[in-house]
């Protein structure tokens, strides 16, 4: 069956691509099946408390989804589709509440985060050496197993070189062959030039980070070098120019936060959250930071003193952050606005 062993994140292709209905069973089914290696390693990590939390841990995911927020207007803003005249419905209060509830559920589906995986190891495995064949051919032969029901990760793709060596295909060759025989919508055979570094700069200047990330998810596998490179460059650019709000309420926000927290670059994001009066999000961020870096000083202090809210931010600010001045200013401004609104 196509679902068996298919990675659970196969279900996440959205606007840029629709999954082939035949090949992939229902989203719920896929989501419940673990991605083989990760599920196993996750279980090990949960049992041993010493190792650091994974991207897919429930606690981590809940923190990240809280920070992502749920702005319905942004999630359901018009995508490029066929022009249809708008439909108007007359509803009672109860029906409206029901419709909003359904919309929130659908939005949560759309906001499921694409996976964060480490880069895949290059394949170089020689199956047979037949040097007698050297010189007979000038071309390599690529043999793909097109059995419909094998998962793509387990498909046999071998290459017979002109030197007579029979080897397993590299990841790039594998991706190309699978796209030739089992094409998926939104994925091109040759990656579009938007993913080159010079063109990425142009895209970032136009604030189209989300579109680039959606295209990247459609085009590349999550553990390929290109996917990781594009994502990291996008996150770096957002951090440099403090454009965090572009990704808020999209499915890429969790990945960005995970990237920043792992590299301890959380200051800009923290300032942005305080300036927008999202103190809960800020506390979530700091909790996540403490989960991932339990040895840092602020984590130890927070555990000893059991601080919450603004105090937690103050503790974090004093010990871990590099832009102490900015965060203090932002906090002061926030508390002044609180005081003035309380006074009113």
């Amino acid at each position: 069956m196509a679902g068996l062993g298919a990675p659970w994140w196969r279900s996440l292709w959205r606007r840029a691509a629709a999954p082939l209905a035949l090949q992939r069973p229902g989203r719920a089914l896929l989501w419940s099946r673990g991605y083989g290696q990760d599920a196993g390693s996750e279980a090990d990590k949960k049992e041993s408390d010493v190792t650091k939390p994974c991207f897919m841990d429930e606690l981590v995911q809940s923190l990240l989804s809280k920070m992502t927020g749920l702005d319905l207007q942004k999630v359901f803003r018009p995508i490029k589709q066929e022009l249809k005249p708008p439909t108007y419905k007359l509803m009672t209060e109860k029906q409206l509440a029901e419709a909003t509830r359904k919309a929130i559920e659908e939005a949560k589906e759309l906001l499921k985060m694409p996976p964060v995986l480490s880069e895949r190891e290059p394949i170089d495995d020689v199956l047979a050496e037949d040097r007698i064949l050297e010189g007979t051919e000038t071309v390599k032969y690529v043999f793909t197993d097109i059995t419909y029901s094998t998962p793509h990760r387990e498909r046999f793709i071998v290459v017979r070189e002109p030197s007579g060596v029979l080897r397993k295909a590299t990841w790039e060759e594998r991706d190309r062959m699978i796209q030739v025989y089992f094409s998926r919508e939104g994925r091109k055979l040759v990656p579009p030039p938007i993913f080159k570094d010079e063109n990425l700069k142009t895209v970032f200047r136009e604030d189209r980070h989300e579109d680039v990330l959606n295209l990247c998810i459609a085009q590349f596998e999550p553990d390929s070098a290109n996917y990781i490179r594009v994502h990291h460059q996008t996150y770096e650019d957002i951090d440099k120019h403090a454009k965090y709000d572009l990704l808020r309420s999209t499915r890429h926000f969790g990945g960005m936060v995970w990237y920043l927290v792992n590299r301890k670059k959380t200051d800009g994001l923290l300032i942005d959250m305080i300036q927008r009066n999202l103190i809960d999000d800020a506390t979530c961020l700091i909790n996540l930071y403490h989960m991932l870096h339990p040895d840092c000083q602020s984590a130890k202090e927070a555990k000893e003193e059991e601080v919450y809210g603004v105090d937690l931010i103050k503790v974090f600010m004093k010990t871990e952050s590099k832009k102490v001045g900015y965060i203090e200013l932002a906090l002061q401004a926030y508390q002044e606005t609180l005081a003035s609104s309380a006074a009113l």
Partner: protein
Amino acid sequence: MVHLAHLLLKNYHGGHVAIRLALGGCANRPFFRIVAAYNKRARDSKYLEQVGCYDPLPNSHNEKLVGLNIERIKHWIGCGAHVTKPVEKLLGLSGFFPLHPMTITNAERLRKRRALKAETASEEETPGDQ
């Protein structure tokens, strides 16, 4: 599950199923489908099942693409299908079958011919120098 292969084979007396190449494509652009068909059928006519494809012209990455539905090939061979020589050679190159003896023989013949040519070329050179 309905086992149809038995019925397909039972009524075909004196003939057999073959896994062979069926030519398609356009002028100056061949393209082969690897196909399980009755032996006596025309090369390109109705087949039982398409079981792969082979593109003899190399692509922009200098590769010849061959797709093989291994599961179905195994099934047809299990039902007693014969495999024609070109398909045997392809399967041998892919590693699914052992290398076909003619592949090895042709490789050796080519090597000998090239060695002979090199020898005669060097022989012509040395008297020329002298």
